[in-house]
Each structure stands twice: as structure tokens, then as C-alpha cells.
């Protein structure tokens, strides 16, 4: 966290700078099946974030050394487009994108029925086209919808959500200013049907009570976003021409 501390992020009326309530998420829109070359795909806009996910497979896992005899491996690449941030990003992997790719893959491996596809690989490509704090969560949400769109069996979808702390107050879904000048960020990947957590990170400073409230907000947001995910998949397959 930036931890500058002296930047005002809450207005005198108790609302946030963009007018949101403390437990209010930015608007979310989801479209499934937007990339015709992929086996499954989705686009998620979350506030000004734009995340796109494509799924290929299950396919033969190569090189052979990555194969698992009893299950599929999930190969995730999270990548930010060069024009997705204020300062241009040089193309290619960096430490941050590698870490996000790793934990996202592990989260998805916890929900996909990987034992159904021994020795195979499922490729999940997450591309961030515009970043405004919260891209890893938008990416997880997009990946889940893309996997469902590809017809890959899962125990549940994962919803990427985040809460944090600004001006000693717990709030849902930090925007860019709140992320830069706030005190904590708690992104989570939640399974809305089972109530389990498949992805969790945190940085900053939270008391145990603040953590509980932040997770409560996260579960509330996951439920809301899950409905939008389901609607996107229903819209994709309505009419039956796909």
C-alpha cells in the first residue's frame, strides 16, 4: 500500500470520493464468448478495469515433463497490455505478473474437475486491457466465466473481489486513488455456492475485526457479481445457436 495517509479519501458526508457507499462495488459488466478463436472466453469490466480471458483445451500437455498422470494442469498467463496503465508497460513477463499467474492457476485448479482430464493441459490467458486497481480480481472472474463458456466442468465458479481500508475505515472494492493512498487491500477469490475461498492475498495493515468486516464485504460482493456471471453465460447460450 502507498500509505501516504494524509490524502482525503472519504467525503464529509461519509461517502467515498466517487460517491460510493462504504460497502458499494464499482459497476461490473460481463460478456461471455467474445473471442471466436478461443474455446471459451469472457470480458469483464469492473469500474474502468477491462479484463479479457481466453481458454484453450483441454489439450495435450507438452512438454511431457509438465504432464500429471492423474489430472490436468492449468496453465495461466496474466498479462497487462502495454497501454493498460498510465505509464506504458514494456511487453513481457515481470515478477508481479508471474506471481499473479501462479496463484490464479492454483485457485482455478481448486475448482476445475482436473481429475477428469489426466495428462492434459488447459490454457487460461488473462489479458488486462485497462487497469484501475483490481485487475487480478477482474481477471479471475473473467477466467471463471471463460472456463464455463468452454464447457470445462467445475465445482463452482470463482468470483474475484477485494476490500480494503482507507482512512481507518473498511471499504469494499478499492479504486485507483484508494489503492494508492489506502492502508490495506484484501483481494479474495470466493466460491459463491460453497462459501469457500480459493484465492487470498493481502497487504497493508488490518486488525482482526477489520479483516472480518472486509471478508464480510467480499462475500456480499461475490454474491452480487456471481449473478452477473450467471446472466452472462445464460445470455450467451440463449437461442441455442451456439
Amino acid at each position: 500500500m502507498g500509505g501516504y495517509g494524509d490524502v482525503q479519501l472519504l467525503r464529509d458526508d461519509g461517502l467515498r470520493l466517487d460517491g460510493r457507499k462504504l460497502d458499494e462495488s464499482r459497476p461490473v459488466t460481463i460478456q461471455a464468448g467474445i473471442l471466436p478463436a478461443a474455446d471459451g472466453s469472457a470480458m469483464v469490466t469492473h469500474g474502468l478495469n477491462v479484463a479479457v480471458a481466453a481458454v484453450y483445451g483441454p489439450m495435450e500437455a507438452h512438454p511431457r515433463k509438465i504432464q500429471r498422470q492423474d489430472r490436468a494442469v492449468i496453465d495461466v498467463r496474466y498479462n497487462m497490455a502495454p497501454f493498460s496503465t498510465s505509464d506504458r508497460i514494456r511487453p513481457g513477463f515481470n515478477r508481479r505478473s508471474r506471481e499473479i499467474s501462479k496463484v490464479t492457476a492454483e485457485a482455478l485448479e481448486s475448482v476445475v474437475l482436473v481429475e477428469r482430464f489426466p495428462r492434459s493441459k488447459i490454457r487460461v490467458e488473462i489479458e488486462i486491457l485497462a487497469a484501475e486497481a483490481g485487475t487480478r480480481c477482474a481477471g479471475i472472474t473473467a477466467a471463471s466465466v471463460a472456463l464455463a463458456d468452454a464447457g470445462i466442468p467445475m465445482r463452482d465458479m470463482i468470483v474475484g473481489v477485494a476490500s480494503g481500508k482507507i482512512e481507518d475505515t473498511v471499504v469494499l472494492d478499492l479504486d485507483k486513488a484508494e489503492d494508492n493512498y489506502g492502508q490495506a487491500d484484501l483481494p479474495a477469490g470466493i466460491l459463491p455456492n460453497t462459501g469457500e475461498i480459493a484465492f487470498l492475498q493481502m497487504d497493508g495493515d488490518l486488525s482482526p475485526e477489520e479483516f472480518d468486516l472486509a471478508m464480510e464485504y467480499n462475500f456480499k460482493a461475490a454474491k452480487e457479481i456471481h449473478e452477473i456471471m450467471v446472466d452472462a453465460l445464460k445470455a450467451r447460450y440463449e437461442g441455442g445457436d451456439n
Partner: protein
Amino acid sequence: MVELVPNLLRQEMARLAEQDARIDGRGQFEGREISLETDCLYNAEGSAKVTMGKTVVYAGVKFEIRTPWPDRPSEGSLMCGAELRPVAHRKYEPGPPSPESIELGRVVDRGIRESGCIDMNSLCIIPGEKVWGVMIDIHVLSDGGNIFDACGLAAIAALRTAVVPAERFDVGDDYTLSVNGTPIMASFTRVGGRYVYDPCEEEELGGDERIHITIGDEGHLHSLQKGLRGVFTPQEFAEIFEVAQTKCAELRKIVAKKEAN
């Protein structure tokens, strides 16, 4: 990944060509439906999304301040790059930029640069000290054939909507980038022995060499590229060049119409 080109597909392409037909029912020089969106990405100073059939491409423009080259103290710079990331197709693999993506970026770059639509002197802030570097990054999200034309269109459309972020760099007020022209690319692939315009994925898989032609507002050529294995005659080129003139004029109108809205 090596694409296996089934002989059956090539035979089918030859059979269709004999009947003056294409695998998706189009005429020889008929393009697919195109949709263009501009100014669609937060954080990019100019942006565009192009959909052509199953092909989806984004382009984004960013600016940076750099020191000019010593021999050209008042000239800024323009760079256009393309990424063919694994998101776009199962045939693309992760790793350093492939020769294909480098070719793609350079062909689009040449068309825009050589058309002279950007006056490099207009990118000067302080001669000998500070100039703007303009970077167009092209991101192919779905390769459904003919990504060259889609990338060329996205790049110029994004550039033409770009706003120079002078305030953010503390060098004055933001202003719209001055772009004097709309260079447009038209691509042809030999399929079943003859050239077709705007090849789809199957036609590229079962076809031969390709030719990319970039044409400016005045009908002049600004970049040419012949790619892949195969040869062609001057007569064949003359025919597709004439088609390219018409196609580029049509696409230029799509860009103009988008800007008028």
C-alpha cells in the same frame, strides 16, 4: 506449433476456386463485416477495437518524453509494435516476440510512418532536449484470419483519436494529436491458385503466399509486403492493386464516419 495443413483442405480450396467460390460463401474480393470502436480503453491516450469476422484486435497509443536523436534535434518518434500472444489462438505460444509478430508490427509501422501522416517535427517540445515518443501497441485477441488488415485499421484509428497527455508530463495543456491522413492496408492471400481479399482462418491455413498493400489518402502506395512461400506475376499484382484502391477507400470512409460521430 506447426500447423498441419490437410491436403483435403487444399484440394477443397482448389475446387472452390474453380467454381469462383470461397469456403465461407464470399466473392473473390468481398471482405467480411467490420466493426470499429474508438476511444474504448481507460489509460490509453488513443484506442481502437476492430472486429473482422472472427478476428478481434485492439490498439492503444501511449506517449513518453525522450531526448531527441543528436542528428535530428527537433524530431519526435513513432513506434508501432504488435503482440501475437497465446490469447489469440491455440497456435501461438508464450515466449519472446516471434518473427511473425515482428513482421506484423513492422509492416503496420511502415504504412503509417511512410504515409507521413505524423509530422515528426510536430512532436518537438524543446529542440535538442525534449520530444514526444509516440507508441502504438497492437494487441491481437482473436486470430480469425487477416490480422494484418485488422491491426492496420486499429492502429491508425487509435492514432487518430489520440490526445497528447501534456498536463500529466507537466509540459502544457493536453491537445489532440495532429494526424494528416489515414493510411489503410488491404491484404490478399493466394487460395486455390488465385488471390482473394481478406482471407479467413481456413483460407490462410489452406492457402499460399500473401501480399499486403498500404495505400494513403491520395491513392499512393506506402508499404508493401509479400509474405510466405510462393510467387506472383506483375499482372496478378496489377489486379489486386486495383481492388486494394477500392477497399482502402471504403475502409477510410468507415474511419471518417466513426470520427464524425
